[in-house]
């Protein structure tokens, strides 16, 4: 019974996974086909693969430097956003007053305003501060926009940690800070991993703000790829190649974080 149940589960999961991945696999195939084959009816699975477009994107069109820019923005955002957000989330999760909910809710309100409305004032502000085309502006914008989400996500992990754990630590002589640092924080490690991952994705994939706030020195990959949105069929192959390449860093990051997730699980036993 048990193994059979496991096998069925695995088959179903694999099938679902495959269907889920079809659009990406199709994009991958398009990136290694000539446009005439890429959109043929019925779809061709046997063709002469070409790495021409990948070569063109990463070497001839210089996407590698945009990748570096994207990584700097994403890395900077994680390094600022996650620590700040985690602190605030812990504060919120352990505050009993009504103000906490109000604060949390008003933070969320910022996230509810369509971002396109923030774009114009953001541009004006960045110009005023002469911060157009700098990493700093882009990172600050990403951190600020990302904070409500980071705080709320981390808070939901802190809420799961019994208050008794902090109290026990404080009875043992820790102050609030030490209790947080040595006792509570290790138990929410999966949360930290997940939060970093989403912060990274948000900053790394951001398009609108990157379009407005970056220039030739700091242009990020999504902006570079979107530059090939159309008007020539070849551009589609180029953006497909870019789209496949741009996925690699977050996928690697996801793999790293996954390991952490599993480790976090074993540490989670502390909670019992």
């Amino acid at each position: 019974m048990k193994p059979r149940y496991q096998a069925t589960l695995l088959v179903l999961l694999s099938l679902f996974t495959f269907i889920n991945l079809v659009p990406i696999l199709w994009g991958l195939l398009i990136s290694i086909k000539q446009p005439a084959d890429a959109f043929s009816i019925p779809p061709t699975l046997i063709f002469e693969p070409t790495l021409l477009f990948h070569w063109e994107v990463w070497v001839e069109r210089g996407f590698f430097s945009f990748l570096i820019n994207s990584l700097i923005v994403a890395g900077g955002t994680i390094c600022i956003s996650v620590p700040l957000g985690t602190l605030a989330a812990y504060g919120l999760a352990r505050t009993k007053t009504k103000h906490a909910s109000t604060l949390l809710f008003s933070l969320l309100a910022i996230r509810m305003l369509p971002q396109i409305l923030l774009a114009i004032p953001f541009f004006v502000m960045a110009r005023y501060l002469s911060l157009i085309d700098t990493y700093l502006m882009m990172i600050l914008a990403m951190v600020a926009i990302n904070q409500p989400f980071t705080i709320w996500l981390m808070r939901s992990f802190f809420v799961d940690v019994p208050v008794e754990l902090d109290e026990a630590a404080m009875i043992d002589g820790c102050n609030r800070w030490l209790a947080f640092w040595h006792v509570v924080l290790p138990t929410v490690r999966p949360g930290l991993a997940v939060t970093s991952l989403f912060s990274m994705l948000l900053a790394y994939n951001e398009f609108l703000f990157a379009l407005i706030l970056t220039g030739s020195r700091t242009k990020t990959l999504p902006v570079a790829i979107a530059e090939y949105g159309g008007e020539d069929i070849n551009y589609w192959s180029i953006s497909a190649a870019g789209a496949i390449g741009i996925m690699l860093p977050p996928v690697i990051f996801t793999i790293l974080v996954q390991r952490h997730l599993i480790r976090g699980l074993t540490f989670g036993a502390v909670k019992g």
Partner: protein
Amino acid sequence: MGESGPMWLFMAPSVLVIALVLFYPFFSAVYYSFFNYYLGSQAITFAGLDNYTNLLSEERFWITLGNTFFIVGASVALQLVLGLALALALYACTRGVRLISLLNFLPHVVTPVVGGIFLKWMFVGRWGLIDATLIGFNIFPPDWLGDPGWAKFTVIMADTWKFMPFLMLVLYAGLQAFDTALLEAARIDGASPWQLLWYIILPMMKPLILFVVAIRTMDAFRFFDLIYVLTNGGPGTATETITLYTYQIGFRLLEVGRASALGVLTLIVVAIMVAALIWFMQRRGREAF
């Protein structure tokens, strides 16, 4: 408790950064909503609540709001069910979990601008993958992007494809933080899998479910990139969401004042919904919020 002092200190840095960076953009957007402000002209004049009353008396506003509710409701519900099912399946599965969860997460990693193009290549008439495959078998499928009903369906599927992995991962991470002893105890007591799910797992996951549903509702309201690429709100107004409409007013008609008012209205609608959601969850169990 005399605790709130140090707790505020924890929050201070974050609040400071948000205030410094977002204060000006956020309030200027709200400010402009009370003005006649057209990017093409030099003059901006105070309009009071005109922008708001004009929008509220407009048929198109209500159509787009209705579309938004329908698309958001359907896609968030679908994502939650699929994401939860997948998270539970992964939790129950003993082999290949890491690989499967990684692969299923990939759609969420795709850059939104590109995600739209990927999906377009699936759904576009005739030479999109779905059509091209079916035509190979001499089946002529419906017009995914051009028929008002199917266009809604396609857009919902697109949003689900992109964001279901987010729910899956957060819920799966939540499951992992669980106290397994409780589950074991219930299992030994003879609880069926459904009972386990309904009485133990779901209540324990309530804060996280609340979190993902609220976040997704908020974000789906601003759902933009995919629809923009796939149907651009068409055909007619069939898939025009409120954000797409905001974009049209603000960035294409360049009426920043009116667009800001629409943005503020969106904010109010979403705030009410999220507040209702929180209230609903709170009523069911105080620990949720």
